[in-house]
Structures are given as C-alpha cells and as structure tokens.
C-alpha cells in the first residue's frame, strides 16, 4: 500500500514535471516569438539587410535599369529587373485608373444633366409625313458596324481597365477571372475589325465631311444655339464634321496602338509598348465620352435617328436642320426627273427605293 502511495506520489510529480516542462517550453516559445518579433522590429528599425537584398538591390540599381552581359540572345536578356514595369504599374494605378474613372463619370454626369435639363428639340411644324432619302444602305451599315465594334471593344476594354476594382468587390475574384480572360480574348480578336470599320467610314462618309461654306459661321454661333437666326447647313453641319474627324483620328490612334500591342514583337521596347498602352487607353476613354455626347445629340434632336434607322428623314426636319442640303437634293431630283422624262418620253418612272439600292453598291 505504501508502495502504491509512492507510485501515486511519483505519478503526480511526473505530471507536474511534465506540465512544468510544457509550460516552460510554451513560455520559451512565446519568448522566442516575442524576441523574434522584437528582432524583426529592431531589424526593421536598424535596417539590417540580408545579403540577398543587397544583391537584388544592386541588380535593380534602385530606379535605373542596368544591363549586363549574357550569352543568351534576346533584346532584354541582359536585364534581370526592369524597373520601368513598376513605374508603369504606378502610372496605371495612380494616374490612369482614377483620372480615367473620374473623366468617364464626369462625362456621364454631364450627359445625365443634359438629359434632365435640356428640352428635346421637336421638328418645327411637326412631321410632314413626306420623307427624303438621307443615307444609303451602305452608309447605314458602315455606321452600325462601327457601333457594334466600338461597343464591344468599349465594354471589354473597360472591363480590362476597371474590372479588377469594380467586378471583384461586386462578384468576387473567381467570377472576375473568366470575365477578364473572356474580355481579353474578345478584345484582341475583334480589335482588327476596327480597322475595317475605319476604312468603311472613310470610303462612305469622307466626301460629306470636308469644310464647306457656312461651317465657320456655324461654329461661331455654336449651331445657332444662342440665336434664333436660321443657319443654312449642307449635308453635315460643322459639329457633325468635327465629330466625324475626331472619330477618324481616335479610331486611327486606337488601331495603330492596338496593333502595336497585339504584335509586341514588332515593337520590342517596353517604353514604347507602355506608351502605346497609355495612348490607347486615353484615346479609348475620349472616344467613349464622345459617343455619350453623340447619343445625347441624336436623342435631343427629334427625327435625327430616322436617318440611321430607315435612311429616310422627314422633310420638315431636313428643311430645318440641313436646309442647303435639302434644297440641293430636291433641285437634283427635279433635274433628274426632267432628264429622265425627256429621254424616255415619259415611259421610265424612277423608283426612289431602287435609286437607293443602286447607289448603295455603286
């Protein structure tokens, strides 16, 4: 029994001992941890550097990119770290994204205010019921083709530019990954079609967009916005011509920079690629803002959309907004009809729809 008591005592002692060891080791661990943390803090405070960081700092040379020598053949083979990429990241995150976002939001805000406070301009004397052919089928196809391409490129481009900061908080990173991948593939695939749209825009619209008589007056009076005086305007007014040339310039910039980004091996320096990307983004944001304005203009002037819907516009609209073109158009039609009836002795009748179709493919 005494022996048993001894065992019992021994057992308790062993438990206490082991507990003591555990607690000591725990305390020691805690101490270690604390001392580790303290060391880390003191390291940070004293800026004690590891040999590795010294090495990479030397390689990086802080803000300068240095090139060494290597037997590997390649444009950037001698450069281990290119600091320009980090600089570009900063430009993208600290300048392009916030200011680009403010710019787009600002443009949308202005358009929203215009929608709210500017009254829709009705056709003077209402719709006459008589229409004039304004756009050929090919002109309409060209316009809508550009709309489809620019629309698709804008959505995918905006997703690539702002998606990380908008989609991830809303839907999470796992949803953003496929969206970003799809946007990138779609953007790269459809991009070259913008060049086709641009060429079509030049072929089918350029002849109406050269400066003409009355354009300066239109610009000086802002299209007669502040005066009730009627302005004689041809096929396009000066504002529409500016929009057209701005679209051509921006789409050209987007096409060139886009192709440079699509084929980086033909433009191998990172500076130029980054510059191309910056210009591409700025041009795209400008084009999108301009499109917002264009949509508002079309909405605010009643009857304008018909030109791109059916190709026909109301006579009263034509008289009011493009009086010189309307006069020229009706004059030409009368002359044509006279010639036709004279040559055919009244046997040929001219069908306006067939004229439109013929004109479209000639």
């Amino acid at each position, binding site marked *: 029994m005494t022996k048993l008591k001894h065992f019992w005592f021994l057992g308790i002692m062993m438990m206490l001992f082991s507990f003591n060891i555990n607690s000591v080791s725990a305390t020691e661990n805690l101490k270690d941890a604390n001392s580790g943390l303290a060391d880390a803090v003191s390291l940070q405070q004293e800026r004690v550097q590891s040999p590795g960081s010294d090495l990479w700092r030397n390689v990086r040379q802080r803000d300068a990119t240095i090139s060494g020598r290597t037997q590997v053949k390649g444009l950037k083979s001698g450069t281990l770290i290119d600091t320009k990429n980090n600089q570009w990241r900063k430009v993208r995150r600290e300048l392009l994204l916030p200011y680009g976002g403010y710019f787009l939001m600002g443009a949308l805000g202005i358009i929203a205010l215009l929608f709210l406070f500017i009254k829709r301009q009705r056709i003077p004397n209402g719709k006459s019921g008589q229409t004039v052919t304004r756009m050929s089928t090919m002109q309409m196809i060209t316009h809508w083709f550009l709309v489809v391409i620019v629309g698709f490129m804008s959505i995918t481009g905006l997703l690539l530019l702002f998606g990380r900061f908008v989609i991830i908080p809303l839907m999470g990173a796992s949803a953003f990954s496929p969206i970003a991948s799809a946007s990138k593939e779609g953007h790269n*695939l459809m991009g070259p079609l913008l060049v086709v749209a641009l060429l079509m825009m030049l072929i089918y619209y350029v002849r109406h967009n050269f400066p003409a008589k009355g354009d300066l007056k239109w610009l000086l009076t802002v299209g007669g916005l502040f005066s009730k005086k009627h302005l004689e305007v041809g096929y396009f007014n000066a504002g529409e011509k500016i929009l057209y040339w701005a679209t051509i310039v921006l789409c050209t910039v987007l096409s060139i920079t886009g192709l440079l980004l699509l084929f980086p091996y033909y433009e191998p320096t990172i500076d130029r690629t980054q510059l191309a990307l910056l210009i591409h983004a700025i041009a795209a944001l400008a084009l999108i803002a301009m499109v917002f304005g264009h949509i508002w203009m079309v909405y605010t002037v009643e009857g304008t959309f018909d030109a791109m819907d059916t190709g026909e516009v109301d006579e009263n609209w034509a008289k009011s907004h493009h009086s010189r073109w309307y006069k020229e158009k009706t004059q030409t039609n009368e002359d044509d009809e006279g010639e036709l009836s004279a040559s055919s002795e009244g046997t040929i009748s001219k069908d306006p729809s067939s004229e439109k179709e013929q004109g479209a493919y000639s």
Partner: protein
Amino acid sequence: MIDSFIDGPLWYFSLFIFFAGVILRLGSIIFSKHKVDLSVAKGPETPGALRTLFSRFIPDKGLFKHIKFQVIAGYVFHLGLFAVIFFAAPHIKFLDKHFLGFSWPALPHWGFLVAAQLAFLGLILLWLHRIMSPVSRLLSTKGDHISSILTFVVLLTGCLALLESFSSLRLLHRFSVELFLIYFPFSSLMHAFTFVPSRIFTGAWFGRRGIKS
C-alpha cells in the same frame, strides 16, 4: 449541377434533335412526291445536276453587279466559319475523341484568329445588311434574325473561351452550341444541307430541258 446537365443530358438531347431533324427534313424533301415529267428529254439530267451544283458557287455576272456586297460578305463569312468549325484545334480534338476517332491538321493559332475575324466580319455585315436594306428587311423573318444571332453567339462564346482555362466559358460555349443544334433543323440554317438537293433538282430539270446553266 448545371455543368453536368450541359455536358450530359442536354448535349445528347441536342444531338438527337439535330440529327433526327436534319434526316427528317432532308427525307421529306428528297422523297416528296412531285409530278412525273412526261415531256421528251432534250438532254441528260445528271450532267446538268452536277454542273448546277458547282456553277451556282459563282454568281451570275449580270446579277453580281447588284449584289457584290452580299456575295463578298457571304463568302468571307462562310469560308471563315467553315475554317473555324473544321480546322480549329479544339474542335478537331473534340471530334476525334467523341465521334470520329481520327484527326487532321489544325490551323495554327494565328490562322484560327484570322478565320474567326473573317467569320465575324462577314456575319455582322450580312446581318446589318439584312436589317438596313429596305428589301432585305422586308424579306427577312424572325427566324432569320434568330439564326444570325445564334450563330454570332456560338462564334463569340467559342472565341471568348479561346484560352481553354475556364470551365465556365467552355460550358457557355457548349450551351450555345446546344441551342444552335436544337434550333438548326427548324430554321433557315438548314440551307447548309438543303442547298445540295435544291441545286441538283434545278440542274437536273434544266438538263432535261436542254438548258445550260
């Protein structure tokens, strides 16, 4: 759940509808009863049928002047689509694994991109022509628009999934293909098959009457 449905039952259902529908429609055309031509044949039917089958690929000169846009855009679209369907590496791999058991050389990646761009270009332009041209607008039915949109969606979802890294994008493409297959036999998309009997019938009839076409 949804992924196994798209990859499983819906896929087999769409294939069944597609094959059964195409066979039924083609059968109804080929075996339809028509009046026996009792006139004396002025020429053989078979050469006329074969000639017309291929000659119709080239538009009539007089007509071409007026339909340049549709012909060029039509060729751009159909050739692009054909290349994308039958020469895209993922499609060849899929057909090899699930249907045929053999493969053929695929287009390089850049070749696939060019083919897809041509297909998109042609399809968008043709669809816009359908909507914008006053004559085509009148002639087009809802079904024609649905066919164009479905084809566009199938092409687009396929190209968006090009990276082959996301199951969700692959499923989206497969789902759109399934909708396309189900809609195919009931729509004008059937012209992909019916152009053959149509041309053969017309050509044979012309041949019998001694008309060179």
